[in-house]
């Protein structure tokens, strides 16, 4: 093509100049700030022994499906010259699980990896919801239980300190807790999905209505209604008065030893949308902005699906959201 590329002011974007919804161009001033934040977080990860890895943006869809079948609908797909289905990765955890099982098949755990990589997710949400995002994350492989989770939580907090945030917190819940309670109260399987769905949206009105219709005893009913509202420090683990919290108690002990207990919020209603989490789940907040900066959790079954059975946990931050939070904190002074 030759000739005039310059756009005319006020002229509506056409397919010649538009970019897909949820994507954006980054210009030098913003890029400089994003880069600076990324560099500082990268240094924190490297210092803690989390070497940076990179994997292809495109993977065979079959491989990604093995990691999480439920996320398939949200992926962008294309074909290669042989007609095989390729998909853009929607997170880095599944590709890293594949890397561990194939490139580190005999390596002695623990293994520690970090990444700065773009991921893509289609969304039905309105204008402005990003579909391409830059993630900064870490994966700790081969350390089971609270030891592993505390290391990931503490390093996340340190990396955000390095990025210039001051007031960030990490919410910690147990993605399996509510489901196992439903099971132990003999709630029929058919009710689990709509209840967990209401829980993940925190439609507490809808959830309470569903609990009431189960016809449980008063103690069970109260626990199912109250649990999703319990959040705060160590004390919520006592107030919850339910089995299944030993893991979170141990985690509290470990984050206390690491000196970050005051940055951790236990949130017994927290569940994450991804299908591969098996235990504790994390979400990262900053009071200056109204959305989570990232999240993660424990995924002890995932790497096994690729051929090497190892416990693991990790966390991913949305770098652009970290940047927004840092700018908002700066503005608040």
């Amino acid at each position: 093509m030759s000739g005039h590329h310059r756009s005319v002011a006020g002229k509506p974007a056409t397919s010649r100049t538009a970019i897909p919804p949820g994507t954006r161009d980054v210009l030098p001033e913003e890029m400089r700030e994003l880069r600076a934040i990324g560099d500082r977080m990268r240094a924190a990860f490297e210092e803690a022994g989390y070497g940076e890895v990179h994997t292809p943006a495109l993977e065979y869809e079959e491989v990604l499906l093995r990691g999480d079948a439920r996320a398939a609908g949200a992926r962008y797909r294309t074909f290669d010259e042989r007609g095989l289905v390729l998909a853009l990765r929607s997170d880095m955890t599944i590709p890293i699980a594949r890397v561990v099982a194939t490139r580190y098949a005999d390596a002695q755990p623990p293994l520690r990896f970090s990444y700065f990589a773009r991921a893509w997710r289609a969304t039905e949400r309105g204008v402005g919801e990003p579909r391409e995002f830059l993630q900064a994350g870490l994966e700790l492989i081969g350390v089971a239980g609270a030891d592993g989770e505390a290391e990931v939580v503490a390093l996340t907090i340190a990396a955000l300190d390095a990025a210039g945030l001051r007031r960030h917190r990490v919410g910690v819940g147990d993605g399996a807790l509510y489901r196992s309670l439903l099971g132990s109260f003999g709630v029929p399987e058919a009710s689990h999905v709509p209840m967990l769905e209401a829980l993940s949206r925190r439609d507490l009105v809808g959830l309470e209505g569903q609990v009431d219709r189960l016809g449980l005893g008063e103690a069970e009913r109260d626990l199912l209604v109250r649990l999703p509202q319990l959040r705060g420090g160590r004390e919520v683990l006592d107030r919850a008065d339910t089995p299944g919290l030993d893991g979170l108690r141990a985690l509290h002990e470990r984050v206390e030893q690491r000196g970050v207990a005051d940055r951790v919020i236990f949130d017994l209603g927290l569940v994450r949308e991804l299908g591969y989490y098996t235990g504790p789940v994390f979400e990262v907040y900053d009071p200056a902005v109204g959305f989570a900066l990232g999240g993660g959790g424990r995924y002890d079954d995932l790497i096994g699906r690729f051929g090497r059975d190892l416990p693991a946990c990790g966390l991913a931050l949305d770098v652009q959201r970290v940047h927004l939070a840092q700018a908002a904190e700066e503005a608040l002074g």
Partner: protein
Amino acid sequence: MSERLTIAVPRGALFQGTLDLLDGLGIDTSEVRSNERRLLFADQGIVTMRPSDVPTYVEHGSADIGVTGKDVLLEQSQRKVYELLDLGYGQCQMVVAAPDRGDPIGDALRRLGRVRIATKYPRLAAEHFAATGRQAEIVEVKGSVELAPLTGLVDGIVDLTATGKTLEENNLRVVETIGTCTARLIANPVAHKLKAEQIDSIVERLRG
């Protein structure tokens, strides 16, 4: 972070009920009541807006909590806000209504294979007809929905009604009730964690 909560208060049908509720919580609303046009009341931690904007401000954290109708939440189900409490007031029915003569909706479905429906709730209406196995063409209107079937624009409407009076006066009758809508207390997900104590104290007092 500021310890005080910012509350999004809906103007319109839920306005008085919400201000009464806030009075009950010990929040002074006299200034809000006497200022029709002012929107932001920083001293009281109150921002006022139309009900359909409440989820937007709460989702983004510009307000920590807010009050809006269940109809708004159903229509904007993609919003990431937590629904904490059914406040009970502002009770309305979400209904399908049609002209009072014959069965225009049934006729359209039988003869034309689809029904045309006007509404301010396009998403909710589409879901209702899809869920009941009927093909519907949804026409979104902004103003008085009752006008649409009277002029032949559509066969019926989906709208919120409290007393049914407006429907009646326009020779429309309720043919199906989709659900009951009341005022709801919603919260921003991050505020729900970081301002847990303040939010819980409000929820507990409202639960009574």
